[in-house]
């Protein structure tokens, strides 16, 4: 086999000669020439549809395209639709679902996504091709998805980040509601917490809002975690909520992988806004299930315990409800009732009551003034006890 020195010398020669050979081979075609062809990014962006996730952005602030920076969560991006997959429509800022076509240019925001029934997706470290991972207009690289999503994610090619007056990339955070100092006292909050995505949390919130309004309360709805999409907030507008806000109003495209402090700060900013608008009860929805990282951290935080007077659990079935109650055992916030999909089944309701000792309320019951007001009173009374106990 020869000694080390001669083999090392031979190897160096092989490497050197191989590089010389490569230098003479015709390079493959550049895979993404389009971004360079777009001269006036601001004009293309102005003509493109803007997604729900970007609804707070002042479009006149756009000055051009940054084609080289690494994107961050919340950055606005002009992208081309390459191939349609699961999301064939884009929710626009005005609520319309716009049909997408291949080669459309769209303005959306980068964000991480955690959705058990849909996609797990992360903001890539580059402006290379990625995916539309939420109908509300979220760009990210899909890492995994539910079996049901047979077509895979819709593929997009980012053409550049939208830049502002200083030439720096614009971020949703630049257009967030301003955090306020202590204005009006914060209203009491009832949190809706679920066992998983699609357990019935938003329906629970909507009917509870109707009940509280029927009882005479100026009621706000706040979705504190999740992925930017219009469906939930529009449902709550329809349900008659006096003010509807979500984390996108605090400048976040989504809350997956966001630090707890950022979510806590968003919660306080949005609750203060509710107070300043004369809201006297807030129904706050926490996305996904109690095992999800941000949901778990938020529920366990002292700030959450200080703001939330009571929790309604939305679950698909009795066993899920029971597990949720168990995992909430460490918090001092009282669980007021069970609801969600299980409440549509009399047998599941009975099982759940036997397992947890908690009563449940279905949609029609939540929408009555009597039940909603009783839940609110129960929360305030428990809050008093907690305060006295402390």
């Amino acid at each position, binding site marked *: 086999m020869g*000694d080390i020195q001669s*083999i090392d010398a031979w*190897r160096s020669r*092989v490497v050197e000669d191989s590089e010389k050979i490569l230098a003479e*081979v015709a390079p*493959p075609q550049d895979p993404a020439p389009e971004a360079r062809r777009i001269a006036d990014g601001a004009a293309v962006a102005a003509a493109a549809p803007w997604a729900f996730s970007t609804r707070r952005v002042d479009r006149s602030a756009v000055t051009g395209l940054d084609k080289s920076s690494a994107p961050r969560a919340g950055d606005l991006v002009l992208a081309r639709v390459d*191939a349609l997959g699961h999301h064939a429509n884009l929710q626009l800022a005005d609520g319309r679902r716009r049909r997408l076509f291949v080669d459309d240019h769209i303005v959306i925001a980068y964000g991480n996504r955690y959705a058990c029934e849909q996609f797990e997706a992360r903001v890539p470290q580059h402006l290379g091709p990625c995916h539309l991972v939420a109908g509300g207009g979220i760009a990210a*690289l899909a890492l995994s*998805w539910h079996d049901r999503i047979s077509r895979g994610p819709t593929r997009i090619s980012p053409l550049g980040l939208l830049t502002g007056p200083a030439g720096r990339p614009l971020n949703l955070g630049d257009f967030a509601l301003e955090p306020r100092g202590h204005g009006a006292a914060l209203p009491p909050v009832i949190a809706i917490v679920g066992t998983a995505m699609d357990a019935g949390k938003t329906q629970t919130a909507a009917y509870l809002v109707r009940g509280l309004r029927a009882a005479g309360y100026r009621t706000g709805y706040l979705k504190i975690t999740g992925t930017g999409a219009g469906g939930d907030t529009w449902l709550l507008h329809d349900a008659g909520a006096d003010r509807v806000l979500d984390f996108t109003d605090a400048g976040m495209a989504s809350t997956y992988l966001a630090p707890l402090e950022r979510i806590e700060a968003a919660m306080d900013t949005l609750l203060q806004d509710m107070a300043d608008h004369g809201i006297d009860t807030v129904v706050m929805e926490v996305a996904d299930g109690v095992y999800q990282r941000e949901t778990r951290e938020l529920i366990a935080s002292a700030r959450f315990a200080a703001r939330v007077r009571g929790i309604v659990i939305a679950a698909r079935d009795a066993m899920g409800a029971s597990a949720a109650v168990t995992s909430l055992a460490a918090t001092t916030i009282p669980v007021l009732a069970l609801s969600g999909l299980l409440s549509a089944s009399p047998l599941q309701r009975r099982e759940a009551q036997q397992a947890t000792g908690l009563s449940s309320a279905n949609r029609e019951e939540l929408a009555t003034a009597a039940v909603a007001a009783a839940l609110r009173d129960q929360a305030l009374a428990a809050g008093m006890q907690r305060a006295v106990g402390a």
Partner: protein
Amino acid sequence: MNSIASPMPPHALQRVSQARTDYLSYLPRNVDRGLAPIVFVHGYSRRVHEQVEVLHRLADATRRALIAPHFTRELHPRYQRLGKGSDGQRADHYFDACLAAAGQCLGVSTKRVMLLGYSGGAQFCHRWAMTRPERVEHLIAVAAGWYTFPNPDLAFPYGLATAGRLRRVSLDPASFLTVPTTVLVGAEDRDSVNLRRSPRIDAQQGDTRVERARRWVLAMRMAARLYRVDANIAYQEVPGIDHDFDNFVAHGHLLELVLAAIQETPRLQDGGSAGVNSRAA
């Protein structure tokens, strides 16, 4: 380099052949269990036993365990492309199961591996590395027949569009482009025996293994520029060598080349992490 010539102690080689896992493993006497094992994937002729008997010397020289999953002709006819076997299990899932079982049996972690593939095995290895870049300490692809190019517009296995091809898998170029990679090919590997030929592959990649390796290395380097990560891909075209494994070992110093690549891995990795583009706050 002396240890690279040592004969294999017969007691150290194990074959585990079960329904879901079939692999060979070799544990050097002086194994360092903290090091990522060398995982070898055989070619389409499936000469795994003979090849492991040669490659065990790499394990001795690097103090790493050696694991060689066996893709049988009956069960895994399309393993090179991560295809499903006749039992319905995808080749990469079967491979994962082999690694997990071997790791447990040998007492080494297979969370990260030194991945070495020959011919059809090199095809498998680079595709597996694209799906699980975080697990690959160094990819060494020897004489692959053809490649998956880092082109998101082409359907897998030609390119990265996995929808409908690789269920629930998405390939992230920015991640796999940073995997330290060494491509080895014999400069005389220009015969089309056992080489997959089709107008589509020939047009995209060329009509010999040499041509295909060159184009893939260039495409990977160009893609790295597009994704603004440092390319970590070395190319070695070995003079006088064709597609014969034994000839590559005897006259192309294959073991020495692979050993040098393994030993240079930390340096390659340092280079890889520094190049990720970032924006000042």
